[in-house]
């Protein structure tokens, strides 16, 4: 997969959208929550990443029925969900490998 490994902000944005569709502000706050306040996205960074994800067809925009001020919501596409799963699998493998190697060194 050409686009893996993902940058941390992109990964967190995708994880934020994995559970439910969200609009920009909600993604921003969720990313902050997930990273315990370590990753604070600016609007420039957030929408730069959203634009790239839209271009690569990982996410899509849609109008929320009860949205205020015509806010756009974003959700994962099947393609995006599949790629996110691949990235999670890759990270799982890496974590397992790292655990084994570190444990072997400590013995």
């Amino acid at each position: 997969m050409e686009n893996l490994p993902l940058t941390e902000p992109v990964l967190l944005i995708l994880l934020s959208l994995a559970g439910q569709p969200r609009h920009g502000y909600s993604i921003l706050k969720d990313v902050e929550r997930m990273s315990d306040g370590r990753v604070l996205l600016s609007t420039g960074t957030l929408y730069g990443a959203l634009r790239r994800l839209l271009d690569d067809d990982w996410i899509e925009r849609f109008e929320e029925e009860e949205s205020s001020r015509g806010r756009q919501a974003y959700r994962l596409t099947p393609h995006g969900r599949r790629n996110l799963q691949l990235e999670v699998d890759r990270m799982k493998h890496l974590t397992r490998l790292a655990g084994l190697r570190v444990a072997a060194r400590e013995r």
Partner: protein
Amino acid sequence: MLTAYQHLLRLYPKTYRKQFGDEMFAVFEDVRSELNHKGALARIAFFIREIAGLINGALREHLRTVFGVHQGLSIPTRRFTVRNEFRFPKSTAVLMMIILAGIVLALEKARVIQASYSDGNPVVPMEASHLTFFPTLALLLVIFYAAGVAGWAILFALRRSGVHRLADISGEPK
């Protein structure tokens, strides 16, 4: 604040602004109003982050639209991007400039004090010294910066040419 943000949004290409401008502004407004009851430090950090994010984002979008540079989603692992040792040492350059500015300022002050207390020389007012001080300082900063960039470019070119590997070549094959 909101006006400044709107002005900065104009740095983005028109098509991007049309697509995301209103949304970005709405999100900025939401976060800003949330910070109203927080400390000044948090607000300052937020504004710095926003300004840096906007400038960086606008630059990337222009590069993408003008030159077709597509910034992907992944962590860059190309050869050039992982060569940390060849990054221009910006922090060192800034530090050097600050030290240089301090030295020039101290010398200039010393010159003025000397002129003021010298019996043979007329008293030189501080304002007159400032007239020469700032252009001199600016010129020196430019010269030092240009020298730094030129030096870095030469080193980079030499490294790219692989000349440093010549030292590793021994006379006899292993």
